[in-house]
């Protein structure tokens, strides 16, 4: 179970699925193989397969990897490996399986949904444990990812440390090597056998992502050492989401937004290094209008459960103009476009309420003093497990020109009412006609 995330979709779109297969053939320099063998035989007793067992059927519902980091039996894995157990503690239990195939029950101590980490404790077993590296490697250093991909057996994968992924808000190590489902939560070691990161996600084709050392250390420093009371676990997660969004969205609201020319309007561009913009023009030769879009989004999602991600920030702008279509046709086109808006994050019925929406016509001044009327819609849905957090959608379409229109739209997920309101205000102020 690997969180592929937005990176995954983007790279897959560019390169196609075949890339994954091709990439695998490239692994395995001889020197690496030597190191890998030694490392693995030395540390294999410190790694565990993490199983989430469904109680009524007794069957496993999620598999991942994990490793021991202290002599009192603390095991690190990914939050997304144990998320079923966190959300439904009465339906699942946790089990860890050692390299010697012995099975042990484990208790959950703490989770960090922002960095996708969790700690468990296994009783009365470990004598040895892995240690954290004092610092991150240099770019180009060989590092070794360990895990149990697809439950095929323990695997060690040599690869290259390539620094922190650019444009990533949460900081992820860019690891050139194949991390596959089932390896999630497994350790990544430097050549001296110290932990530098935790397997977390892949974009396919040798592009994989690790939780870096500093976040692992930060989490372990403050993680609880007592079993997590699952009755309050959701409050704990809510607090983490709340703080993270306060930091992420709060910063975005505080900074000035650069504006870029977009048709006859000015719209926000890359408002922060981790908000990346992509543009596209409709090239269909049959259509009788011009249409281009700019979409700016945060590349990282926060995994909460299989059907529920949060943390998405998307700003979308569309420009429509046509000489050939008459005004009625033009606005039928816009109507069709504006009735299709969907949130940019997934959520199920158990996670969120339905959207509630408010519509109105909003009047503003263009820079030349012209009156601009925008049909505006603002919708929000609340998180059922995390009261006070909302997904919000804004959609605006201008209605004053016969042949030109600007469509502006944003999605924020997992934000408080206060942040959403401030963001809405800022967004509307920063979309302006010439």
């Amino acid at each position, binding site marked *: 179970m690997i969180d592929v995330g937005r990176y995954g979709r983007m790279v897959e779109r560019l390169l196609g699925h075949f890339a994954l297969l091709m990439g695998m053939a490239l692994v395995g320099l001889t020197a690496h193989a030597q190191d890998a063998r030694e490392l693995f035989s030395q540390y294999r007793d410190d790694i565990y397969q993490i199983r989430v067992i469904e109680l009524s059927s007794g069957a496993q519902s999620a598999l991942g990897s994990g490793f021991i980091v202290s002599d009192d039996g603390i095991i690190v894995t990914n939050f997304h490996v144990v998320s079923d157990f966190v959300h439904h503690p009465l339906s699942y239990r946790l089990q860890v399986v050692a390299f010697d195939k012995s099975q042990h029950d484990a208790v959950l101590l703490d989770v960090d949904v922002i960095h996708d980490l969790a700690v468990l404790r296994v009783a009365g077993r470990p004598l040895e444990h892995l240690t954290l590296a004092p610092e991150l490697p240099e770019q180009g250093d060989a590092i070794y990812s360990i895990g149990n991909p697809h439950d095929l057996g323990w695997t060690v994968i040599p690869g290259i440390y390539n620094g922190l992924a650019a444009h990533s808000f949460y900081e992820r190590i860019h690891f050139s090597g194949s991390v596959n489902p089932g390896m999630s939560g497994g350790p990544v070691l430097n050549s001296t056998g110290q932990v530098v990161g935790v397997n977390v996600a892949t974009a396919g084709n040798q592009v994989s992502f690790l939780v870096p050392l500093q976040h692992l250390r930060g989490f372990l420093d403050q993680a609880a050492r007592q079993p997590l009371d699952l009755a309050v676990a959701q409050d704990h997660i809510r607090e983490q989401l709340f703080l993270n969004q306060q930091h992420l969205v709060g910063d975005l609201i505080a900074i000035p937004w650069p504006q870029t020319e977009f048709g006859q309007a000015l719209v926000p561009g890359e408002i922060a290094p981790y908000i990346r913009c992509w543009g596209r023009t409709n090239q269909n030769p049959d259509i*009788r209008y011009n249409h281009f879009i700019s979409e700016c989004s945060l590349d990282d999602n926060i995994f909460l459960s299989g059907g529920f991600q949060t943390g998405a920030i998307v700003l979308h702008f569309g420009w429509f103009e046509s000489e050939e279509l008459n005004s009625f*046709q033009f606005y039928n086109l816009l109507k069709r476009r504006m009735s299709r808006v969907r949130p940019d994050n997934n959520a199920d019925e158990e996670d969120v309420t339905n959207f509630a929406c408010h519509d109105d016509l909003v009047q*503003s001044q263009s820079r030349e003093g012209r009156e601009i*009327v925008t049909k505006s819609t603002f919708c929000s849905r609340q998180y059922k497990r995390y009261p006070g957090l909302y997904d919000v959608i804004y959609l605006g379409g201008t209605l004053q020109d016969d042949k030109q229109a600007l469509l502006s739209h944003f999605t924020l997920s997992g934000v408080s009412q206060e942040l959403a309101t401030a963001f809405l205000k800022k967004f509307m102020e920063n979309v302006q006609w010439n």
Partner: protein
Amino acid sequence: MELIFELSNRAGHALELRRATGDRITIGRGYDNDIILQDETVDAQHAVIEQDADGQLVLIDLDSRNGIFDIDHQRQSGPIPISSGSEYLLGHARLRILDPAHPVPPALRMGEMYEFTRLLDRVTTVVGVTVLAVLMIWLEAWLNTFAQFRWQEVLQSTFSVIGTAFGIAMVWALIGKVVRHETHLRTHFAVLMVLVCGYYVISFVSTVVGVNTLSSVLTGGTAALLLFVLVTGALATSLYLATRQPHRRRWTLAAGIAAIPILGSLVLSSIGNQDFSEAPSYNTDIAAPVLRVASGIPGDEFVDEAQEVFSAAAIEE
């Protein structure tokens, strides 16, 4: 004596009325009878009506092969005393015997419905509404074409609408033929064309109202209600035509009953909307600037007003 004979089909609808006079009225298939019944199950000399010693009219079976039955299919034998309005089966033939003084109910008013359907029945009306409906379909298609206009596609959808309407009209005509021996095919067709026109008018009006008032309850609800009224009206008209039921109360009731499933499906779909959906539902009415008379509110005001969605999202939980 003078008697009126009402010949009916098996459903009891009168096909023919005949008057006969004389001391003795004979009934049979033979051409020498007073009342000739062209039915293979009737004997050449089947029955006779006479006055007995007390002056009572009696129906006498002339030893016919298939006999005489009353309306409850009980075989009658011997002289059958008859009263005005009584009905008998001679073989398969159904015969009602009436005194010339038999009372008839007062005449019914022809009513607005009759006038309305007569108007619909005119060739000019039928052609007019059909042309109007086709033009509306074309206009709608043209206004929703953002690439090259393709007649082929538009004609295809036009033919499918016209074809469907014709099919439905045929079904109504068939019902009318069975019930009343009247088809009214083109009137039924005209009703459906009015329905098509009405649909486009309602959706256009609701968009214009929607873009100016921005109340999805008002526009969506009113449009649905108008559409319901329109469909029920069309149904009532077709029912009236097919059954020619002159009692207004009866066909209004029938149309009402027929409209219940439509109302039911509308209600069900609005309940369905309350199920969980990942997509927001909001007012999507947008129209050309010329159709917009309302102006907007300042952005700050919108932000303040929009705060309601947070409490609305919370209440729903």
